[in-house]
């Protein structure tokens, strides 16, 4: 009896205590995996991007006269942006980007609350990036080839363009969409050179004049996207509010080592006569009633298929006019009709770090264009 009892005890206790080394190892592995998962499921997200550029504008103009360009050449810590996100739970989250521009200006570049119901339907409110064009949504320096952003996406689509608003976005199969209601631009800061100064940047923004913005992108293939966007609303002046609209068509493609990007934009501002009068703008200094332009980027990664590095010589052709049309009583400033041809090289040792160099041949109808060369380093994470 004693024997049987001892045997039973031994059997039972071996089951409990004699975990094999393999079992113990698996328990340890589970624990380590749990810790790793905790890290990847952390509610706090960190990211960011930045770019530092060197710009050297040539003093010889197209018409062989000389011009000075203020501080030139110039080295500028153009942008340093930190992204902080926080997941309150699986649906609700905070997003934010704090930007230091030119090393001494701080902006709240975007931020607010998101609700993720599904891939097809999400809601956001706060300081939103206006989903027009290419660069305003894809503005990290690693996402475009040249040192500086295109002039079109500075003067007609004023990147980085952000306003307070609310909207929905999501993806249906090959379509991505976004629809927002946002505060409009400030018309009394428009000029003959475009609408860039009209951004309110969510800083005590005048919220009387609002705008709708809609965007749809169609991924014809995984490596080729076609898209359109429309911004329709009002821009507020001191006394004169004007209707302001922007429509764009854009494409982005990558085929083998070839990168293609293109954009066409048309913008209309009505009642510019009253606005120009209010702002005492006369003659060729008036704000244009129609602004338009297009650009095309073409690059080829010469290391495609050989190395992890990307070395992409590229060319850009950009043509635009911030006074495509002016209302009667005003004349066009021919220097606003510009053509930029950019040639350069873009080197990426990894996808998140980029070194760039380019040369811009700047021409305009008034023959006062000048060339510029630039160097840049950028990153994002």
């Amino acid at each position: 009896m004693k024997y049987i009892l001892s045997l039973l005890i031994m059997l039972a206790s071996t089951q409990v205590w004699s975990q094999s080394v393999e079992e113990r190892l698996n328990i340890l592995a589970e624990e380590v995996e749990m810790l790793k998962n905790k890290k990847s499921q952390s509610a706090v997200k960190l990211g960011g991007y930045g770019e530092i550029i060197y710009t050297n504008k040539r003093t010889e103009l197209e018409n062989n006269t000389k011009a000075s360009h203020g501080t030139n050449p110039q080295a500028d810590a153009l942008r340093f942006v930190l992204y902080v996100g926080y997941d309150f739970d699986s649906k609700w989250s905070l997003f934010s980007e704090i930007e230091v521009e030119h090393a001494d200006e701080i902006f709240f570049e975007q931020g607010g609350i998101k609700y993720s119901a599904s891939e097809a339907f999400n809601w956001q409110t706060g300081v939103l990036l206006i989903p027009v064009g290419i660069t305003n949504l894809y503005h990290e320096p690693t996402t475009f080839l040249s040192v500086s952003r295109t002039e079109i996406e500075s003067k007609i689509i004023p990147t980085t363009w952000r306003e307070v608003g609310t909207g929905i976005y999501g993806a249906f199969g090959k379509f991505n969409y976004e629809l927002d209601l946002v505060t409009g631009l400030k018309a009394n800061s428009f000029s003959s050179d475009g609408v860039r100064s009209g951004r309110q940047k969510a800083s005590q923004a005048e919220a009387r004049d609002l705008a709708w913005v809609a965007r749809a992108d169609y991924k014809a293939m995984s490596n080729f996207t076609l898209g359109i966007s429309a911004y329709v609303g009002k821009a507020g002046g001191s006394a004169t509010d004007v209707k302001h609209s922007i429509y764009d068509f854009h494409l982005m493609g990558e085929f083998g080592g070839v990168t293609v990007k293109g954009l066409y934009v048309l913008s209309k501002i009505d009642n510019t006569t009253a606005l120009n009068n209010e702002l005492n703008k006369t003659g060729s200094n008036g704000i244009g009633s129609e602004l338009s332009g297009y650009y095309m980027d073409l690059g080829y990664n010469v290391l495609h298929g050989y190395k992890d590095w990307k070395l992409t010589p590229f060319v850009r052709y950009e043509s635009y006019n911030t006074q495509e049309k002016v209302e009667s009583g005003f004349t066009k400033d021919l220097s606003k009709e510009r053509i930029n041809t950019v040639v350069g090289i873009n080197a990426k040792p990894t996808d998140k770090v980029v070194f760039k160099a380019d040369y811009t041949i700047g021409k305009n109808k008034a023959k006062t264009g000048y060339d510029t060369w630039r160097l840049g380093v950028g990153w994002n994470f």
Partner: protein
Amino acid sequence: MELLISFSLLANLIVTSNAEDRIDPVLRLPFFNSKTMKSCSTKKDFRYLSKQEKKRISDAIGAKEIPGLYPVYNSYCDKKTRSTYLLNDIVRSEYQTLLISFQDDKIVHFEVVRFDEPVKYKAPSKWYKLFLGKDKFETIDAISGATLTRASTLKLAKLAHQLEKKKNEKK
């Protein structure tokens, strides 16, 4: 003495029932409950990498450093065996989790289980199908506007492939 026996048996029972109750949430994923997988019996195991293996795989996938421990789900389906990996990576600032399943050394299932980056950075579902049946991934198409998603996905596919190769080396 009887008391001691009862305690031992009770402890045994607790250990056994705990193991049964702890159902791995991964096995609740639709993939493991799909038609193809329903008849399979799946067991979780781990791949352990030595220092040298970590170095070799890091170099092969272009990563600075990788962990030395990976869970793998081995499924026994009729006469076939499948290995399935769930791997995480940061795309830009946020994580994606991929489920990559191998049979006969080939990828037979490729799925995004979790994608925390904005939806505009996600590739179309058709793109992920390009990984099926492949063991080299460099020629897989780019994704316009989502370079970092492609880079992260390729990295995880290469990692899964290397882990699967290690299993075969073990054989």
